[in-house]
Each structure stands twice: as structure tokens, then as C-alpha cells.
């Protein structure tokens, strides 16, 4: 992999992959919903939407087709630490993709009519999410687990902020964070790295760096007691979610907790873009056996995401019909207490490592997925954190998992959420 930083501060990562005549370009910005404050929650995500709506050199009505004419796909997403944009297309589209990303970085328009029209699209996106009880519970659990850190509000934002934010809020935010010294450009595919770098330089070198963006400094104070919440709303199904403040990706406990999660609910891998599309291998996992095999839950899922700052490790379960949530919670906490007390076995660790190794291979099956991983880790920490994943997984021991579990799983560190449905009608 080639690593370069342009004079304006733009980091560039280029990796050759000649297995298909394709190239994937991702442009990553170190800005996400953690950079927002009350009044403008959701602004990062709204800006992402606005950055598909034409630039000084790409008229609004010509956005459509720019990549499609190369058979390409494009997309973007925003989460707590990052905002990113991608195109994957045939390799001859590389220059076009770089042009689009340079335009997006420096010359988006934010036409007032487009800002207004997108307001209702995003509110529709928010309402679509609220239709899903599990997503609603996730949002409430996160807001309860964090009382100070800005990880507490949902990436889509609070409704009242979406209703009142102005074009000036959006454009000001865009100008502050969309600067080359706050970005990483990743190219993976059937490309010549020297030529690719020349084209990157051509498109990006004239973009001026900006001031280092302000960062919110508040850290989440240590949680001192269990927190609980219950959503009572009409529905058909009961959901349980338990969250623990978890290590950030650079914390020594991160990979031990990843192995712990594999033992509890099956390994997911590390790719936010693709890992969650294939369910984890979990039939023999502890919580699957304790909840699903005993008929208490129809599914159980654990999630530890690599994040820049300490976020949450969550375990979610869907109660089977007529099973009280308290019974699901009791069985779940019993298993977590057991692992907190006794740790895991050598055989379990060996299986967890085998699963994680396989998932790392499966998660790198396309230029799009490889490029995602390089950019994601460079944005939240540094790309070495990803490149070293196999050796860090290999270095996990039964003792390091036990120690991490003891730090992670005390009752005082957890938040328990119920979605307890009221009868319909």
C-alpha cells in the first residue's frame, strides 16, 4: 500500500488489486455526529446529503449519470466519527471519481431550495427508522448510556434540530470540516499507483488547507451505577438491549473484547460496510445457547464497533412470543456474570480466533470492501490498527480476555433497555 500526504494535508492511501478491472475511491472526513452540539444534531449527515447535489463545476442536473456511465455505483454514509463518500466503477473512471471527490471537498453549492427539499427527505429517513422498534431502542439506550459525550445523540439528529437548522448552519459546517487536512483519500483497484497519485495531485493540490477544526473535548465520566429504560409503545414483539461502555479501537482491551464477543455471540469481523450483511457464526456461542436454544429469544446479537473514543458494546435479543423480558434479561446477565467471573476457555479462544481470521478474509472480497477498511481505520485511528489486526487477534490470550471482561462487564457499567410492547389498537 502506498501512503502519501499532499502539501495541503490530504492523506492518500493507494493499494493495487488486479483481480477485476475495477477501482474504488473513497474520500473520508474526520467529522461525524460526535462533532455536533445541541441545536445542530444531525448536521454531519445532512451535509453528506447536500454533498451529492451539484458543485461549481458539476451542475445539479448533471450529477446523475456521472458515475453510472462507467457502470459504477456511488454512495456515502455518516456515523459518529466519520463521513465518507465512495464510487466503485470500471478502472477507466478513476479520473472521473477523483474529479467528483475534489469537487465535493471544495465546491459544493448548498442551494437554499435543495437544503429545504432535503430537510423533508431526512425527516422521512428519521421516521422510517422510528418504525423499527429495535432501532428506536438502540437510540434510547445510547442516549441513556452517555450523559455527557456527544456519542449520545443519534447520527440522524433530533427532530427539532432537523426542523430548525438553517442553510447557514449547514454551509458553515461544511466549510469548517471539508478541508484536505481533515480528509483521507483511498484508492484500491486495478490502477497504476504512480499514475493514480499524479491524478490525485492534479485534482486536489489547489485545494487550500483549513484551520484545524474544533473538537468537542468532553469525555464521558465513568458510569457509577446501572441505568435502565423502558419504552412502552404499541407493538407485537419485545426487545432487550444491554450496553456497556467499551474500549476504543486503540485501547489494549479492544481485541480481547472482540474475541469475547465472538465467544458470546459469534464473530462479526471489523467491517461496518459489509460485516453485518452476513450473520455471524454463532450456533455454539454462549449467549445463543443460553437464550435462543432455551427458547427465550428468537435471536441474539452482539456489537463492538471500532471507534475513535470509547463507545458501547451492546447485546440485543428479541424475546420469543410471550416470553417476559425479565426472563431474557436474567438469562443474559447470568451468562455475562459467568464470563465476568470465570473468563473463557482455551478452546473457546481458539474458535473465536479462527472465526475472526476467516471473517477478515471474507470482509476483503472486493475493492470496495478493502478500500473501506483502509479509510475507516485511518479516519478513526490509523490504518496500521487495521493492518495489524491479524497479529493483534493472534496475541489475544485467555488472560487478556478475562481481564478485559472484568473491566467491561461490571453492573455499574451497564445500561439495560426494554422495548415492552403495548397491545396494538
Amino acid at each position, binding site marked *: 500500500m502506498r501512503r502519501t500526504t499532499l502539501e495541503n494535508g490530504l492523506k492518500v492511501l493507494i493499494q493495487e488489486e488486479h*483481480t477485476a478491472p*475495477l477501482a474504488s475511491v473513497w474520500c473520508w472526513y474526520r467529522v461525524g455526529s460526535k462533532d455536533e452540539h445541541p441545536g445542530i444534531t444531525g448536521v454531519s449527515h445532512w451535509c453528506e446529503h447536500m454533498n451529492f447535489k451539484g458543485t461549481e463545476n458539476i451542475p445539479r442536473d448533471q450529477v446523475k449519470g456521472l458515475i453510472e456511465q462507467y457502470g459504477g455505483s456511488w454512495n456515502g454514509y455518516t456515523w459518529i466519527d466519520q463521513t465518507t463518500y465512495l464510487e466503485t466503477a*470500471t478502472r477507466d473512471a478513476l479520473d472521473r471519481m477523483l474529479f467528483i471527490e475534489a469537487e465535493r471537498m471544495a465546491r459544493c453549492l448548498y442551494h437554499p431550495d435543495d437544503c429545504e427539499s432535503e430537510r423533508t*427527505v431526512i425527516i*422521512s429517513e428519521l421516521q422510517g427508522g422510528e418504525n*423499527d422498534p429495535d432501532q428506536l431502542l438502540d437510540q434510547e439506550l445510547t442516549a441513556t448510556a452517555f450523559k455527557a459525550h456527544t456519542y449520545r445523540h443519534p447520527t440522524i439528529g433530533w427532530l427539532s434540530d432537523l426542523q430548525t437548522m438553517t442553510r447557514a448552519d449547514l454551509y458553515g459546517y461544511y466549510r469548517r470540516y471539508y478541508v484536505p487536512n481533515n480528509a483521507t483519500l483511498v484508492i484500491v483497484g486495478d490502477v497504476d499507483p504512480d499514475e493514480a497519485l499524479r491524478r490525485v495531485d492534479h485534482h486536489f493540490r489547489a485545494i487550500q488547507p483549513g484551520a484545524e477544526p474544533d473538537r468537542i473535548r468532553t469525555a464521558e465520566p465513568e458510569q457509577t451505577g446501572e441505568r435502565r429504560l423502558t419504552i412502552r409503545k404499541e407493538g*407485537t414483539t419485545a426487545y432487550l438491549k444491554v450496553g456497556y461502555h467499551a474500549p476504543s479501537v486503540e485501547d489494549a482491551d479492544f481485541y480481547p473484547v472482540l474475541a469475547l464477543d465472538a465467544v458470546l455471540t459469534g464473530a462479526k469481523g471489523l467491517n461496518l460496510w459489509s460485516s453485518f450483511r452476513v450473520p455471524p457464526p454463532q450456533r455454539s456461542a454462549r449467549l445463543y445457547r443460553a437464550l435462543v436454544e432455551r427458547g427465550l429469544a428468537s435471536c441474539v446479537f452482539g456489537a463492538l464497533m471500532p471507534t475513535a473514543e470509547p463507545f458501547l458494546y451492546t447485546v440485543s435479543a428479541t424475546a*420469543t412470543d410471550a416470553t417476559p423480558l425479565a426472563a431474557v434479561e436474567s438469562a443474559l446477565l447470568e451468562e455475562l456474570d459467568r464470563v465476568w467471573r470465570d473468563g473463557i476457555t482455551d478452546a473457546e479462544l481458539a474458535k473465536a480466533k479462527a472465526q475472526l481470521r*476467516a471473517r477478515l478474509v471474507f470482509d476483503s472480497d472486493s475493492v470496495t470492501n478493502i478500500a473501506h477498511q483502509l479509510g475507516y481505520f485511518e479516519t478513526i485511528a490509523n490504518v496500521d490498527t487495521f493492518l495489524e489486526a491479524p497479529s493483534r487477534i493472534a496475541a489475544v490470550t485467555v488472560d487478556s480476555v478475562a481481564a478485559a471482561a472484568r473491566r467491561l462487564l461490571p453492573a455499574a457499567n451497564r445500561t439495560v433497555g426494554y422495548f415492552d410492547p403495548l397491545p396494538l389498537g
Partner: protein
Amino acid sequence: MPLNPVRATLPNGAVLLAKQTSTTPAVAINLAVRAGSVADPAGQPGLTWLLSRVLDRGTATRSAADIAEELDSRGITLTIAVTRHLFSLVCTCLADDFEPVLALVGDIVMRPSLPDDEIAARKREVITAIRQDQDNPAVRASETLMACLYPDGHPYGRPTKGSIEIVEALTRDQLVRHHAERFAPAASSVVVVGDVDTVRARNVVASVFDGWNRRPAPEIPLPPLTPSRGRRRRVVPMMNKAQADIAYGFVTIRRRDPDYYACWLMNNVFGQYSIGGRLGDSIRERQGMAYYVSSALDANVAEGPLAIRAGISPANVDRAIASIDQEITAIVTEGITQKELDDSRRYLVGSIPRALETNAAIANFLQTAEFFDLGLDYDARLPDLLGAVTLDQANAAARRLLDVNCATVVIAGPYVDGPLGLEAGG
């Protein structure tokens, strides 16, 4: 580069398709049996779905725990999927694990033990999933649309999971009988794509499946469809929800219809290209009414649906439906432009390398080509098939498929249409 897969038929009738790639040291296995939900016995919709939940929970020689251990220790998730016509077992494993994993998949599909305790446990899960569906506006809208488009017990109109009452009553004997009748080598195709040479793939498949000898039951004849006359509208009130889902559709064509490629291109212009085609331009981009809107053409063995889907604020439902009507009227009366046709064509042809990048995607493509008998060189011929479509053909496809006066429109969500739940319109 064309895929050029290897195809072989074993003496017992099972088909093998193999393609070697070297992207990752992994192999995708996709085994499909022509035993999808259309084969549910009369009065037992949901039986195939329950079978799919239980099939990998024990074989003649392996317990559920043995299978769990074999899969989990290799980091493999075996996904069992049911579509209208196919029952599929799909997984990706490391290349080193190919032989034992294929042997396991073969054992599961040929010799499931279907234990009573597993059936009881999976029934509970299916019932929970049905209850979740009942609270999901997107699922309710789509299932209601399919029930309206395919009435009178047509297999395409039945919910794949069945109903709670039927699932509760299903027995082990029924599952065993169904498996014995429908799962047979001549109804099966095994696709292997990945870092394994095709000779080795063939030998392994042959050694796993050679001893399987059973004749499949005759294919289920699909009842004829009567095209709907008149417009229909159904409302599924779900007042506990924040947003409504619209499902708006028609019965269209068979996959083998000569107009298929014209219909595909027309639908791409109408509801797919870039971000939802013309529908996306109108409803999302210009009017800001929806986060998602698109149309999907699902031509199948019988005439499949074209379904337009959108998530809409309750206050905008009527305006969104009027906009869909307007876009249909425009495409039917004025047609699409040559530029639109060329853009969609260039996109679809150009996207083939991307669509065939991963082992799993190639395996799925080959399985579909096998099912519809599209030929081993289908990927190579596809650009010409799309290239041959003329503007007149695409516009004729719009006139053939779309008609606002014969549309079925379903709204599920916090919306009422006159007295609660009352059907309006023809």
C-alpha cells in the same frame, strides 16, 4: 473476461457449476433445490419456510450441536434461503475447508433428521418473526400487494412464512414427507466459485452427491393468472408507526418472455437509474417526500410483479401516489428518450464486472442463469441482449407493463382512508 464456468451433470442428475477465482483464499458454495415456497402443500403455506429453519439442525450422523461446532469452528455462516421457486443453502468458507464444508452441506440437504425438539424450537422463532412482520409497515405493504396481485391461493400471493395458526399445526411427518418428495438430485444444482480448481470442485461434488438417488416429484403447475381490471386500493392502518409504506404494482411478465430485456431497461429508467430513476427524481429529489422510492421488476417462472416501493410521511401519501400516477402516465404516453435508454444501457452493461466481482455474487449469478436456462455464456451475451433493445421496444414495454387504471396500490402505516381499513376504489 467472460466467466466460462464448467458445467457437469452427475449420473444421478445433480448439476455442478464451477468457476475458479483467486480474489481471496475462499470459496462460495451455493446449492439450490427446486423446492421453493410454490411447492408448499395445499393448506400448508409456510411449510417450506419452517423446513428451512430446521433442515440444518441434525442429520442421520450429526447432531445439531455437531453441525453448530463444525460451522462455528471454521467461521462459517450457512444461510438457508427460500424464494418462490428455490430452496438454497449458501455459505463462504476458507479454501482449505472446502471438502469438509461441502460434505457437511451435502449431508444436511440429503439426510436431515428433523428432530422434534428442534421443530418445536424453530416454530417459536418463526412465530416471533411473523409477529415482527405484522408490526412492519414495509412487510405488510408488500405482502398485501402480493396477495392482491396473486389472489385465490396463487403461490406468489402467499406469505412465505405462512401464518401463526398454520405454523403451529405443522408436524414432523409433514416436513419429512415434503423433504422426501421435493429434495432430489435431479432438482438440485451445486455452484462452487472460488480458490479451488474446477477439477477438484467436480471431484468433491461428485463424491459428496454420487450416492444420492431419489426421483423428484413432478413440478407444481402454477395456476393461470387473470390480469386485474380496474384500479384497486388497500389501506393497512398501523397507527403506532411514524411513516407509511406504499407498495404500488402490477403483474407483468415471465423471465423467459422475449420482451424481458426491453422491460428491464424501461424499468431501470423508470425506477432505478442513479437514485430511483424518474420516480426518484420526482418524489425524492424534486419534491423531497421520501428517503427511498424505487421500482423493482421480478420476472419469474410465471408472470412476476413490478413493485414500486416508497416510505412516505403520512401527510404526503396522497401526493406521492399522485406523483407515481403522473410518472406512469408520462412514461406510457410520451415514452422515454433515446438518451435515457442509452444511459441505462451503458450503466447496466458497465456494471457487469462490478456485479460479478465477488465469489458469492458470481455463484448467485450462475445459479440464476442455470435456473432460467440462460446458458453458460449468459454473462458474455448480456451486453448484446441489452444492446439490441430499441427505443420503440422499451416504450412498448412501458405500455405493456404500466397502466394507472389497472394499478394495485397498498398503503401500510399511520394513514386512514375513510372508515378504518375500508377498501376504496375498484
